[in-house]
């Protein structure tokens, strides 16, 4: 009887202690959602005196969306931008936080904007703070504000999306075709024979919103130059990332334009040596189907398809050659990972090349072979508006 009493007493005691543990400890890192300031994007710029200007774009809650009521009321701003200066990213952020009643929350930051000036000076300090902080997402997109401060881009509104950075992200994926993010940037920066890239976005005067203008190329974490939209496509061909898109080309001697939707694409970068000189062979393969034809060719005939195919292959080759040439001459940074190819497939030779790679790359010979296949010609052979005798079989 007594034994049972002591045992049940002990159980009760344990229960009380457990409940006390629950209620008295805990909760210390609890944050209500309404106490959070959700950072949707932030930008880094240079500030006078070697300091860093940090700006955040913060979501303004709409406060219970009740449809149909806000007819006459002035449209509320969806976001606000706040900025502060500090000696490093963390310091600057602390200064931003001082201006806010709610805790800044970086867990949903989707875009990081780098001012052009800062990008040219180097982004190493910023990269470290982003990689170290567990709140950050590694899939955050990196954008370089071409020709302006990141802060200015951050303030820009975009009409369609509630949050302009949402538009930036979608544009990056749909328009440029590359989801340049922190993760890839860190990998590229820490690998040999690879250089990081970022998206380039600019805000043109007189136009609403902003637009993508291709890629920003880095060399040793310093902005080295840009690729325009045309050359960005060339870059995608080499990287094997032109999985969907459109190529349009004039068909020589047949007077007209053929448009092809790309269905699949791949590329191999093969490092080779001629004697002691290294060179690169890029094998590009792809396939697509015809979606437009203003020539008089009947594309249901295989021979005519071959003619078109040749024209497209030539078009791709030129684009790629242009891209490589301009990167080699104007930027001089190995964004194509050619060095990486040597490092992976010719490790012994790479050891000799490694130190002089920056000097070798601008003069590296690149041979390109393109193999593009047209799979289907759409619903009709020749253009539908042609008369029978105009069609070239």
């Amino acid at each position: 009887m007594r034994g049972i009493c002591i045992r049940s007493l002990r159980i009760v005691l344990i229960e009380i202690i457990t409940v006390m543990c629950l209620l008295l400890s805990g909760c210390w890192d609890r944050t209500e959602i309404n106490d959070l300031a959700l950072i949707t994007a932030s930008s880094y710029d240079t500030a006078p005196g070697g300091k860093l200007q940090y700006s955040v774009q913060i979501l303004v809650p709409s406060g219970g969306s009740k449809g149909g009521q806000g007819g006459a009321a002035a449209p509320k701003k969806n976001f606000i931008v706040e900025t502060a200066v500090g000696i490093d990213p963390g310091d600057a952020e602390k200064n931003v936080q001082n201006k806010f009643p709610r805790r800044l929350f970086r867990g949903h930051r989707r875009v990081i904007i780098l001012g052009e000036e800062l990008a040219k000076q180097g982004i190493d300090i910023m990269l470290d703070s982003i990689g170290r902080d567990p709140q950050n997402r590694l899939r955050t997109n990196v954008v370089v504000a071409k020709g302006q401060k990141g802060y200015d881009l951050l303030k820009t509104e975009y009409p369609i999306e509630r949050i302009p950075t949402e538009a930036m992200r979608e544009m990056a994926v749909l328009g440029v075709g590359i989801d340049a993010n922190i993760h890839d940037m860190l990998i590229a920066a820490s690998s040999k024979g690879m250089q990081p890239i970022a998206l380039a976005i600019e805000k043109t005067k007189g136009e609403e919103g902003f637009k993508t203008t291709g890629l920003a190329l880095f060399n040793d974490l310093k902005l080295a130059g840009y690729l325009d939209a045309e050359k960005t496509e060339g870059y995608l061909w080499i990287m094997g990332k032109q999985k969907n898109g459109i190529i349009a080309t004039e068909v020589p001697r047949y007077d007209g334009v053929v448009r092809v939707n790309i269905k699949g694409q791949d590329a191999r970068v093969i490092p080779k040596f001629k004697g002691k000189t290294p060179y690169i062979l890029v094998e590009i393969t792809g396939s697509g189907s015809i979606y437009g034809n203003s020539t008089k060719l009947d594309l249901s005939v295989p021979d005519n398809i071959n003619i078109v195919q040749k024209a497209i292959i030539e078009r791709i080759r030129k684009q790629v050659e242009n891209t490589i040439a301009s990167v080699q001459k104007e930027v001089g940074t190995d964004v194509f990972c050619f060095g990486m190819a040597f490092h992976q497939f010719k490790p012994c030779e790479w050891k000799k090349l490694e130190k002089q790679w920056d000097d070798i790359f601008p003069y590296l010979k690149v041979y390109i072979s393109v193999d593009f296949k047209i799979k289907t010609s759409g619903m009709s052979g020749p253009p539908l508006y042609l008369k029978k005798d105009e069609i070239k079989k």
Partner: protein
Amino acid sequence: MKKPIKVEDIVKKKKQKTYDKILQEDSQALDEHELTGNLEDNEAFLRSVFKGCTDVVIRPFTVLKTVKAIAVYVEGLTDTKLLDEQVLKQLMLSETFLGENHQKNIVDFIQQQIISVGKLKTINSLKDVVKNVLEGSTVLLVDGEVTILSLGISGGERRSISEPVTEVVIRGPREGFTEDLNTNISLLRRRLRTPRLKMESFMIGEISQTKITMAYVQGIAVDQVINEVRSRIGRIKIDSVMESSYIEEFIEDAPFSIFPQVQNTERPDVVAANLLEGKIAILCDNTPFTLLVPVVFWGEIHSNEDYYEHFTMSTFLRIIRLIFIFMALIAPSVYVAVTTFHQQMIPSKLLMSIIDNREPTPFPVVIEALIMEITFEALREAGIRLPKPVGQAVSIVGALVIGQAAVEAGLISAPMVIVVAVTGIASFTIPRYNLSFAVRVLRFPLIFLAGSFGLYGVTLGVIGIFIHLVNLRSFGIPYFSPVAPLNIRRLKDVFVRAPMWSMNLRPNLTTNDENKVRVPTGQKPSPQQGKKK
């Protein structure tokens, strides 16, 4: 100068508390009074026993125009029409001459030649007379005889067999148990026409004298379990049994566990099917709810209709049910944890709309969740207890007040209402009320854990629940079998419901090892089936 402790004192102290004095007095009085041939004596005694019981009728009359006799019965428990026609009329008006056996075997004569009642037995103590009368029999005492006749012509008003309200099926038998034990047993016997269906009766309730019947199929049920059930029921000492839950609470393995370790059902088909899986049914008089032991957790989440619908449908529904049972348990706590601790886990756009909705609400999410859940439980309780038409009004008011007004007023955020509603619907998918109750209650500690520790707390809580569940045993059978301990061959009837022709064996742990085959193999319907000889 210590007094030496006597052994008797210790025994006295350890002795259980006995019943009230009246019980002792009553049984003493009945034991002491000897049955004599003197009818007047006996009548006087019975009148004293049933003094103040206006429903007990003591009717003196003359048997075969010579011998005095009395009939004792309870009005309302006896079929009076049968009594008048078949017993009293026959006895009083019979012209049959007694002949030489007069006086000697008058009772024998009556029971063999005059009374045409099937269920008849002889008793010979006044204690039994009282017992039989209260059970609904009619007792005949004849002057000069010590043998007393007890006629089983019980009758009176009983609820007729109707469809059980708690276990509604779309396809399946519509019969349900009633409050009458004999009817219930007959419903069972109709489904299992085999002498192997055995019944054992117990009388539990010192005052209520309630009949309890334990039923099992000999050869399929495991003997040890039968003995265990028998001894556990036999140990019960209580003044009355109003419902089978009185029995349930006495025979549970873990009396403090919130999870049901005894299944209850109103359906004879469920009982019969379970008996064939080696389980033991405990039927209780005056309640339509029959107990089934031993049970496993998975049996609690299966509906009997799973076996009546096509197996593809049953399998789909079982999976849906499993998902929603888990949702009913953790949905509010996960919402609380994620919105207060792990905001980065919510997709950005979803978080934005949650933020928009939560902006005007004054309470922390935990408090909000608790308010809503408690209100929901209160509404449900109110809806059940009130008369049906009023109950509906309550639920409409509740839905309006909670669903719309609270959100409109900005007291509660809309996502919370959605979470609570989903949780509510999820808890309705649990086919057994007692398991759904366990899930409903366990939600609250999980919300507390979520509010103080986030997902870490929720995980700990769920792990704790699982540890408890796998530790439970129902009459020696692990509660989570056949999943833990795992028996892959028996999983045919757990998460999925295999086709009838492929469920070849009975559940492993509950059935006798020698009689396991339920369906002989090779019965899958196919064009070859008919050709085989």
